[in-house]
């Protein structure tokens, strides 16, 4: 996006949340293992393939975990079935804890 028109730079920052750090840590580990389980280029490719409105709506680490998930499935590290089963389990686990 270098060189495009855009508005003023707003000096925003926030303390990273724990889940965001976990996403970052996973990427660092997945891209530095030998052999690599995914590449930084794959991370970027996944993010750049997001439609512009989705890109704008998602936060930085939301884009990352989205792209990491895509890459891990593409590379055969995780299957779509495993993932949807796990996602359901995790969601219901926290829903029950809430009550």
């Amino acid at each position, binding site marked *: 996006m*270098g060189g*495009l028109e*855009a508005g003023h730079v*707003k000096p925003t920052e926030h303390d990273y949340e724990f889940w965001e*750090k*976990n996403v970052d840590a996973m990427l660092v580990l997945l891209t530095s293992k030998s052999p690599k389980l995914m590449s930084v280029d794959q991370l970027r490719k996944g993010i750049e393939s997001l439609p512009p409105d989705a890109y704008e709506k998602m936060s*930085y680490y939301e884009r990352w975990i989205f792209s990491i998930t895509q890459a891990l499935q593409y590379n055969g590290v995780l299957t779509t079935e495993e993932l949807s089963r796990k*996602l359901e389990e995790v969601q219901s686990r*926290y829903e029950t804890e809430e009550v």
Partner: protein
Amino acid sequence: MKTSSTNESDTNNTAPTTYYQFLEISVRELLIEKGVLSAEDIRNAVKEMDSRGPELGAQVVARAWVDPQFKQSLLQDAPSAVKTLGLDIGPVQLLVVENTPEVHNLIVCTLCSCYPRSLLGLPPDWYKSREYRSRAVREPRSVLLEFGTDISDEVEVRVHDSTADLRYLVLPQRPAGTGHLTEDELAALVKRDSMIGVTEVCFSAI
């Protein structure tokens, strides 16, 4: 069965609520269950991340200000030079660019968010914003003004676009009137933004 979430650490006290937070937990737990990563690996990587912050970069800058020989080696081969201070920046190439009365340097990553994390920690949100990444290369002087930094027309502004393999760190100019300060006092003056190049280092004698 409760598997090994890295989540039980006391650093996390908010329950996940969004889809992507659930996705993070799911991916992490699957990777751990499948033995791809260990919970400890992840914990250590987070710990490592937390241990890095701009005070490391400030320490490097202050040393370069007081030790011309160190400065020279820093500009020639930054990874080796910072190693002599006991800092390890990992496998990524790092180039330190020096601000002078003639040249002001600014760093950006137009592609994504590459940043000298080993010496500055994680980047601030604005560094990753569309606005900064788009405009830093096109109208750096206006961007600098938005940070309150007015660079005279006679001074050349050089913008460095980082990549995954090559990161930059700005060596800001030592402010006037700091001849009597110790190296630690100098380091305390050096803030993150001055090492990105959006601000200069200020000193006002009280």
